[in-house]
């Protein structure tokens, strides 16, 4: 009986130690243009197990969603994206001119130099809060 309990605890610990996680780096927000309430956020994500980014929210932001800028025959377009696939062990970069997080209905001005806590919700890993540095609208990607 005692051995079974220990085994159960051991299994629990092993499971806890291997809970799916996603690491985020290079998170930043391109501040809205003057008088505008839309901005783009960028981040690089690495999931240790195959996962999907399924929802995003941030305080003071009415709506946050995944968008992808695409260039087709010189025409730029921006499309809604429902989920972002994160293959195990590969870094997926959201970066200018491609996949990005669109922040809409931003209630109050974002302060350049401050950070915006953006919560990323995944299909498997637990939600992750990334502190995205707010940079000027004219910022060049770091």
């Amino acid at each position: 009986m005692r051995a079974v309990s220990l085994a159960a605890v051991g299994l629990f610990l092993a499971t806890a130690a291997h809970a799916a996680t996603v690491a985020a780096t290079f998170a930043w927000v391109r501040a809205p243009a003057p008088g505008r309430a839309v901005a783009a956020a960028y981040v690089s994500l690495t999931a240790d197990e195959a996962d999907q980014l399924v929802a995003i929210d941030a305080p003071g932001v009415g709506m946050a969603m995944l968008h992808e800028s695409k260039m087709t025959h010189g025409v730029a377009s921006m499309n809604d994206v429902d989920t972002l696939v994160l293959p195990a062990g590969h870094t997926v970069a959201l970066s200018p001119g491609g996949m990005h997080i669109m922040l809409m209905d931003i209630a109050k001005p974002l302060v350049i130099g401050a950070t915006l806590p953006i919560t990323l919700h995944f299909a498997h890993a637990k939600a992750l809060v990334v502190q995205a540095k707010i940079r000027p609208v004219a910022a060049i990607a770091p």
Partner: protein
Amino acid sequence: MKRSPQTWAMAAGAILLVGLAGAALLPRLALTLAPPVAAGVPAADPTLAEIGSDFLLTGAGNMAVASTSWRGRFVLLYFGYTHCPDECPTTLSNMAATLDQLPAAARAKIVPVFVTIDPERDSAKIASDYAHAFGADFIGLSGSLADITTTANSFKVYFGKRPLKGGDYAMDHSSILYLIGPDGKLAGLLPADLPPKDFITRLHALGF
């Protein structure tokens, strides 16, 4: 000439249906024009002569701005919109970073101009304030939908609405930089995403 919301909605719906892959089909829509222009067309290309014409739009303080007022200087022209959080600021900030690397005398010979293709949301003040965020001498212009359409058409710029979730909309638009020479004629086209070093090399290759 103001298009009704229904016309816009129909055009936007049609874009969704045909998709950008169907760019060849777009001339059937009210808002379009010629096939999209490929980046990097050499200056000797005779088709360049057909691109662009002088325009009269509205800038800061609701003042009329004529492209003829820039004669004697080069003009770097971009069409975009201010609700664009990614592509447009990425292009304009790259353009600003490039221009910052030019020696002062060369920098003074070039006028950076942003023209909105979303005049319904971008007033002249909004377009002007937006352009100023990228540089003190960046000029931002808007105008009536008719005037913007005429100007965009002359530069073979495609633009059209694309509905987003939540009732908002984005604009599909040609994303390319136009270099206009001191004589007012198109000197060449530059891709929107050139790194500054290549950007400057390309400007020089086009006669700047």
